[in-house]
């Protein structure tokens, strides 16, 4: 079934962004000597997001860099503890790894837990988990823009699984994103996904509907506002998407529909047969490296 876009989709998100804009960012970086090495400086980063939730991140800088350097935002998987993005820094990028609300280090004010986060307030778009969660990832761009060493014209975003879905929504909502690489995108085609697969995390929704069958329409209404597929037409930057054709977590069918709906003319899909939720990661990582090197470092293939 094609993902239906609500008529007031843009108006809803415009309203959310207005609310978020009224909250001061209050960025803060704290050096972490334990994680800092000769080649990479590591910081605990913090900023404030919508609903005044304080969000944590890891920020890594190449020890040797130009006065202004390109930056990458790394967005986490559903269950992943956000990693320290040293490897991106070693490749020459300023790198920010975000822990949206509910993640470890960002759970003091909001903590529905895992499993549960996917269905927390899922009958109400105004308080659904991902309203704030999405804004947290979009505000990560503001944190980068607050840093004098970041070249604002060379910001990329990447992640896989939930990180892939968040890459889609961030590239759609922040025009500062100049290149995006999304893997095995989650949060795309929610209602199809729960029919196509019976694995967690999507299975959380089936659990919820089994216990609350009367809420199905409300759930469908809510997730339509958060479905990455409905954000895709806003994406204008170069983007690559990789999917595994045997993906047991994020069905490849939903990834294909998402890709078809992406607005950018500069887009490419990498389907990997014989691969599950890894979406061909080992083969695809060099593709991602070349993609960002071209668009952010200005290196030719």
């Amino acid at each position: 079934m094609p993902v239906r876009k609500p008529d007031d989709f843009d108006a809803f998100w415009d309203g959310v962004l207005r609310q978020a804009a009224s909250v001061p960012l209050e960025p803060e970086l704290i050096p972490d000597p334990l994680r800092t090495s000769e080649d990479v400086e590591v910081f605990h980063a913090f900023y404030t997001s919508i609903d005044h939730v304080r969000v944590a991140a890891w920020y890594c800088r190449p020890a040797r860099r130009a006065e202004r350097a390109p930056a990458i935002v790394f967005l986490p998987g559903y269950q992943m503890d956000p990693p320290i993005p040293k490897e991106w820094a070693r490749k020459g990028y300023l790198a920010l790894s975000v822990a949206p609300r509910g993640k470890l280090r960002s759970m003091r004010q909001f903590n529905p837990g895992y499993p549960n986060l996917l269905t927390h307030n899922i009958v109400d778009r105004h308080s659904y988990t991902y309203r704030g969660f999405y804004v947290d990832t979009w505000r990560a761009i503001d944190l980068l823009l607050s840093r004098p060493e970041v070249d604002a014209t060379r910001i990329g975003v990447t992640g896989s699984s939930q990180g892939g879905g968040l890459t889609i929504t961030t590239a759609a909502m922040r025009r500062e994103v100049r290149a995006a690489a999304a893997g095995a995108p989650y949060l795309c085609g929610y209602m199809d996904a729960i029919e196509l697969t019976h694995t967690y995390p999507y299975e959380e929704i089936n659990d919820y509907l089994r216990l609350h069958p009367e809420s199905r329409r409300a759930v469908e209404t809510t997730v339509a506002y958060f479905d990455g597929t409905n954000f895709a037409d806003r994406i204008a930057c170069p983007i690559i998407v990789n999917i595994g054709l045997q993906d047991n977590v994020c069905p490849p069918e939903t990834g294909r529909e998402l890709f078809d709906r992406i607005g950018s003319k500069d887009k490419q899909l990498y389907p990997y047969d014989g691969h599950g939720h890894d979406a061909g990661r080992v083969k695809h990582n060099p593709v991602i490296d070349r993609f960002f090197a071209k668009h952010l470092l200005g290196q030719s293939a």
Partner: protein
Amino acid sequence: MTATFRTYWQETLEELARYPASPEVDVLPLRSTPFATLYGVRLTSLGPYRLFGYLSIPAGAGPFPAIYYAPKYQSVLEIIPQGTANPQRSRYITFSLASRGQRNADSPYAAMFPGLLTDGIDSPASYVFRGIVADSVRGLEFLTTRRELDPARVVVAGNDLALITAALAKRATHVVATPALFYKTAELALKTSAYPLEEINDYFRLHPARAAAVRDTLAYYDLRAFAPDVSATTLLMAGARGSTLDGAALGELVAATKGAVTVYESEQSSYKDGLYAEQWMASQCGITDVRSILPEHWR
């Protein structure tokens, strides 16, 4: 295996035994299905420390084979691992445990990731993994008290903790283990800059004077020392050929393990690797129609 190694773990198990598990088992209707009931379980471990786990019992008479998902190296506790078909719960009892520090067992101690691997590592007595290993043993002890369980078909699955638990608790008939933390740790950390082993490098960098003490602690956790006590039939999930923990690198572990060992080298595909492990467990447990409990895209 040195005498101090045996003494250390014997004393740990004796200390654990002084605390009754005192389980509380509550039905969780949200995660229960027509084919399996899910329970939240609270139980006590060494410390004392109260733990949490998810226990799933298939509908029907049983006895059933069981999979014990030993604590992972992450903050999140899963009911069954992400990507596993929920119908797995129709054929196996499953039990997943949050050790101290993980979500649902993060009070009073909340672990950091990264960070847990070096917490208290200066001394075997203070190392946080002494408690975590005890937690994992306690989890297997609890699982095997369930009357629905077939004691001849108990799989422990996980990372290094799966092997360690099987060695110490003796109640596993099968092990599926993916070594990641405690095999030649200090030596292999030097060959990588990836977490979690990078935690060791970070620690050595900031505290070079403590390196000898850290190596001493890690000796109590090296899988090679536990292997002679692992009599369960074991599937070792190795890294891809040429990687730090590939089949060749695990040779010493294989040689030291008491029970039969199959080594599977990763094909760098979560589909191929996952399918192999699911089929292996099913064949070992006498489940002939494994296809019915695989994820849809793997059938």
